[in-house]
């Protein structure tokens, strides 16, 4: 799974969001490292909808502009959980080999 896809699914994991909300959330989750643009976001959302991982949850008009909300499908939640587990396992293995125990958060930073 590409990082942008992972971050979009993560942004939607806690509830439905509209496009701009997803972009802002992705920037926050990644600590400002990943800043999605509209073209990239909607290309990814379209693919995720085709794959059945995301669906439209509703829409509203705010200040005369259409806002469409997206949410994870059960399959999307499953895939996100599986990917998170895979990443966690990889990170744990990397920390172990670096002699950092369960991670930098454990206080064993050199």
């Amino acid at each position: 799974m590409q990082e942008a896809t992972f971050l979009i699914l993560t942004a939607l994991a806690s509830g439905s969001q509209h496009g701009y909300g997803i972009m802002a959330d992705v920037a926050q989750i990644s600590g400002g490292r990943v800043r999605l643009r509209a073209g990239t976001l909607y290309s990814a959302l379209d693919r995720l909808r085709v794959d059945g991982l995301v669906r439209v949850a509703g829409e509203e008009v705010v200040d005369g502009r259409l806002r469409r909300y997206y949410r994870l499908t059960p399959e999307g939640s499953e895939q996100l959980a599986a990917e998170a587990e895979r990443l966690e396992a990889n990170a744990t293995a990397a920390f172990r080999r670096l002699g950092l125990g369960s991670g930098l958060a454990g206080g064993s930073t050199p």
Partner: protein
Amino acid sequence: MTPDRDALEQRYRNWLRWYPRWFRRDHAEEVLAVLLDGAPPEQHRPGPAECLDLARGGLVMRLRPRIPRSDRPTRAALWFMYASAAVGLVVLTTLLVTLDEVRTTILARDPGFSRAEWRGLVAATFRPMAVALALSVLVWSSLAWVRGRGHRWASLAVAGIFVENTGSLLHGLAHGSATYTPKVLLAGGVLWSLEAVAVVLLTVGESRRRSGGRRRRPAAAPTGGSPAHRPP
């Protein structure tokens, strides 16, 4: 709204023309809202990175197959169809490039082979073959694209064309294609194999979809929101 904001909106609308019509119909206003929400008040024209991103997104939307990742046989079939078109192009090029070699081979076997006879052979055999190959490249790449858009009738067309191609290949082999270079024959065999695999994969994808649909139908529950995939 200020004139600057109006101008910015119009420019964004122009860049959204990179997207297919069905996408603009369903999402243009929504994407526009996101673009305008993200633009600082003083901005009155899209930045170069934004323009590139919109153009790239539009092209991706036009070219990327709209087949779910779970439908692996059909996605693989599309790959084989595009590969078949690519190999067809190589075969066509090889045919054109090796014409002199073919003539030399014929002359070595039959020194009395005249220029007029060669022209007749080109007109009767090689030219139709080149045209057929060019059409094949066009048809296979077009059908791959159409099937990738979700049009299932393209699978039937692919199967029909494959049967026709197989007949033509057998007919060609039985009627004088022995003058061909082994390389072209080999490429023809590869081409046929790619098409055969594509047809098999499309059939597998179709049968899985039917059996999956039959299994899922009784358990299907009504869901809210838009469908996950709206065919263009």
